[in-house]
């Protein structure tokens, strides 16, 4: 069983890393270019993946093949999100791309791997206070229950909005513009 887990992790990681690197998502100027609202390749890639998986997930769900479990809403999502975003701006990439970057020969990414683990370790040390402050009041993260509507009434407009954003940025911004 342990062997299966290890192999599964390695294979999924390999495929994910291969796609990220091959598509150019791991590049520092691309991430910074996106955050500076000047290069949108990552956003287009992300929203394509999100839209496509959203439709696939819920179609398969309708056939009873899988069950999605939404993440609940609490203050940790907002505060943690802001801390994460600040880190992403300072660093210039995110955890998944960080690992792929190590494979691409980017030496500083090795340091960031330890930094990331240290960050989680510090989180563990502060968990008691964090729980009381940010995680005590939780709201069900299921948007369909919260809105009380059929899920496709949310999914279809969401897909249209995501596609419209992709269309708009694709029309107005080139993927190899000079930014820096």
């Amino acid at each position, binding site marked *: 069983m342990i062997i299966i887990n290890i192999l599964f992790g390695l294979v999924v990681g390999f495929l994910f890393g291969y796609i990220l690197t091959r598509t150019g998502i791991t590049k520092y100027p691309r991430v910074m270019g996106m955050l500076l609202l000047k290069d949108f*390749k990552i956003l287009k890639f992300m929203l394509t993946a999100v839209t496509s998986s959203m439709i696939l997930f819920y179609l398969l769900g309708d056939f009873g093949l899988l069950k*999605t479990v939404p993440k609940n809403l609490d203050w940790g999502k*907002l505060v943690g999100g802001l801390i994460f975003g600040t880190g992403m701006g300072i660093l210039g990439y995110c955890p998944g791309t960080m690992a792929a970057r190590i494979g691409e020969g980017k030496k500083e990414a090795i340091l960031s791997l330890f930094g990331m683990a*240290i960050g989680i370790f510090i989180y563990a040390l502060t968990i008691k206070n964090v729980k009381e402050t940010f995680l005590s009041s939780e709201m069900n993260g299921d948007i369909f229950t919260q809105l009380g509507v059929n899920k496709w009434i949310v999914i279809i407009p969401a897909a249209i909005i995501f596609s419209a954003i992709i269309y708009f940025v694709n029309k107005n911004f080139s993927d190899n513009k000079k930014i820096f």
Partner: protein
Amino acid sequence: MNIDNSKEWHWFKGGILVSLLSVATYFIFSAIADRNYPFGITAGFGYIAAQFGRLFGDLSENPVIKRFSEKPDAFIEFFLLIGLIIGGYTASKLSGTFLSENIPAVWEKYHGKSLIKRYLFVLVGSIFLGYGAALASGCTTGNILQGWAHLSLGSIVAGASFFAAGIITAKILYPKTGGNDDNN
């Protein structure tokens, strides 16, 4: 400096492939990792953090350390991290984009060659990344690629916060962009 995209896949191809990977992984993941959620990255780093935790005996009962050292998904995601490194290596070698470098060229152009300065930023940035991902229970992969696809309220808030803070930080670090070293 232009971003060279001549050797890159089209964003649409990459995006569709990631979505297929997400969905395929979902089935297997819930079967072997006792987790109704597709793959993420954060728990893999959590697994490393839990190994630090083992160095301190009195931390064995810490709920975060315990979760990351006992749950199978953290163990799987640790190997997912190793897979990512191998995947990045293979892809860059095959496409001829492998490039050994200490710090990003763009950083060097705007913030100087000092390794210590950049490494300090890297360390601080990645500690923020780790703390934030743990608190928001997921990083870009878990909260956007997966969480937005599920339209989870928690992930929508987390993902929007990633961008909001990232955009502000990037603007502070690069208040003025646009090189003037060539005409383009």
